[in-house]
């Protein structure tokens, strides 16, 4: 389900914005996957330079 969620996010700017703001319901995604996804989106938001390849 994480895979499908990611595919949906990258194909919709609206959904991506909502997810980055923490305002998107992520049904079917486990708590651990959600934490990691939101962490990476925050990273992208903060750095504004593509997805980070390094841990914070």
């Amino acid at each position: 389900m994480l895979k499908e969620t990611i595919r949906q996010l990258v194909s919709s700017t609206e959904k991506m914005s909502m997810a980055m703001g923490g305002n998107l319901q992520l049904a079917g995604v486990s708590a651990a996957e959600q934490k990691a996804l939101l962490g990476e989106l925050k990273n992208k938001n903060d750095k504004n330079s593509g997805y980070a390849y390094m841990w914070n």
Partner: protein
Amino acid sequence: MNDCIPLIGQQMRQMALRWFTAEPLVRLTEQFIEYKLQESLKFGQLTVIHYRMFGGEGDKVYRAAGAVELFILASDILDDLQDQDAPGKPWMQVSGAAALHVASSLLTLSQQGMLDCTDNNDTRLALVEMMNMHLLQAANGQMLDIMNEITDEQSYLEMVKQKSSMLLSFACMAGVMLAGKPWNSVVGEYAIEIGIAAQLRNDIRDLLRWDDKSDFLQRKRTLLTLFLLESLSDEDQWIQDYFDGRLSAEDIENARARYEEACERTGTLLYGSVMSRMYYNRFEELLDSIQEAGPWKATFLQILNQEIA
């Protein structure tokens, strides 16, 4: 923790000089160790920090850390000989027979180093049994990686657990056991998480390369190339065609920008970074659950976040 690197290096050199007498073997080994010492010796540092975390005192840990790094050096050489994608490394600039011989000699030297790091026979036996158990599992993982026959995500993660995580577990557990403690299941578990997280981070890097180490150009099956291939749209059919061998490297030599755009658009990069972070988060949770780690956590994380060679 960086201050232990010269001490680990010194032990590596001493072990080689004690056991190797043939001039070319000594010379090449010294040359390869000097090259290795320019890197961070992350595995050896993990041995040292686990020894300290679990109450070990004194200098004998540097011998064990040196033995760990000699094994890592041997596996680096073997890996480069297998992949033939690192022409700049010193072991790729000597004959293949000589490089192979140094690597196999280092494997035995690392075992001897581990035997020599303590006088306690119970600890020695436990260390060497632990070492062989990990390294044999890593050998299984490396073989699966070489064959490149992985077809699904679960098999890939199992292969990474064997190939990458077992080496990290070996390095960490050597410190724990040399400190006189038994096998620690939490350490074993978090080493697996670190190994997968680090491998996925490397996979992101290698997904985007456009040279001999590119996973895409080498048609390498990883978590990310598998995700990419199952996420392609019609306009990306050429990526599948290349992966299946219907297009050659020459056919796609000018397609780098299109390829990078596809990696971004399909979510492959995001998927890789999320998966890597998930395993890393799990590692941190496990680390927080063991009391011994408290004062050492910041140093531990600093070692892990040194650039992976």
